């Protein structure tokens, strides 16, 4: 049972990638990518967890108190910001793709034979 968090992280990673690979809609693909990103949060925080430890906030709690690891939480915070910004960029590109091609299906977006890179 102690392996469950890591198993959930691996599961989210592979399921998210499956969504990206087999998607037929750009928005679905982008949201699946954010599921892959979620796997990194779960893995990071599971690594930093300590049984019986409180949150690393010592407002009103004595400093010596057993606490979980604050470093992985700082890394996860940076990861959340990066995830939100990359998703916003991808959504913007997807909106322009629909405006240009009228379709959101990545399969329609593929390069047709002899198509010039206009």
């Amino acid at each position, binding site marked *: 049972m*102690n*392996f*469950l*968090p*890591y*198993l959930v992280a*691996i*599961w989210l*990673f*592979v399921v998210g*990638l*499956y969504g990206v*690979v*087999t998607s037929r809609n750009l928005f679905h693909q982008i949201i699946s990518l954010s599921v892959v990103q979620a796997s990194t949060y779960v893995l990071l925080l*599971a*690594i*930093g*967890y*300590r*049984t019986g*430890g409180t*949150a*690393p*906030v*010592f*407002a009103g709690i004595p*400093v*010596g108190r057993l*606490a*979980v*690891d*604050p*470093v*992985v*939480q*700082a890394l996860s*915070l*940076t990861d959340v*910001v*990066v995830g939100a*910004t*990359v998703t*916003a*960029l991808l*959504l*913007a*590109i997807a*909106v*322009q793709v629909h*405006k*240009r091609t*009228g379709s959101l299906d990545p*399969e329609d977006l593929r390069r047709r034979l002899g198509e010039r890179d206009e």
Partner: protein
Amino acid sequence: MTIQVRRIVFLLAGAFLAALLVWGMGGLPHFGAYRGPYGDVLNAVSVPERHITDVVTAVNFDFRGFDTLGEEFIFFAAVLGVALILRAQPGEGPGHVEDYATGRAVPPTSDAVRVLGLGLTPPTVLFAIYVVAHGHLTPGGGFQGGVILATGVLLIYLAGEFDDLHGLYTEVTLERAEAIGAGAYAAIGTLGLLTGATFMANVLPLGKIGHVFSAGTVPLINLAVGLEIAAGLVLLLTTFLRQTLVLRPTASPGPLTKALGG
């Protein structure tokens, strides 16, 4: 490859990768058995040496403040990217928002929604400022407070029309506010450099533990980050709103859109 072939190839490769990850992560210590020295040293050092009670904010804005400077400029670059990508295209301009279901009377926003919207905005903005200002004491900080501030501003759009929102600010002021926020973070960093200490050094007086004005530069950085994130997110949302509500293919599609079968 066709999508069917790709599905099979991926399922094979994905299964292999998952198996290897499970095998590799078998070497991890049991869940809950964190033993690394780094976190414990920081938990012990943060309050006495920096008077910061929220150690995560201490790690983010003091011990590893340079990482967060990079992170803020990632947000800065992304907002510039979205503004560039969603710029008005040739053959597209601010068209009137025609109603697709013609013939039905569209009721104006009811007063209840308007009152509720305006009633909620000040407390949200106040709560956002609280989250930013107390970042170094309790969970929260520049990023979380900035996003709450942006949603506070957005309540105005939900309560009224897009024009009310647009009357409040122009996009240029938002860009400037974001530039000030990001620039201020870099400036606070160089403050340490100028006073002979190292970059990102916490050179300001640390004050008393638990007070809002304590922990030297950390609350100032929180404010700079809060300003940047709030301005950036409002700019992002305004860009998406303008894209959805305002920009329409102009009556005579531009040469380009016609050429592309737009």
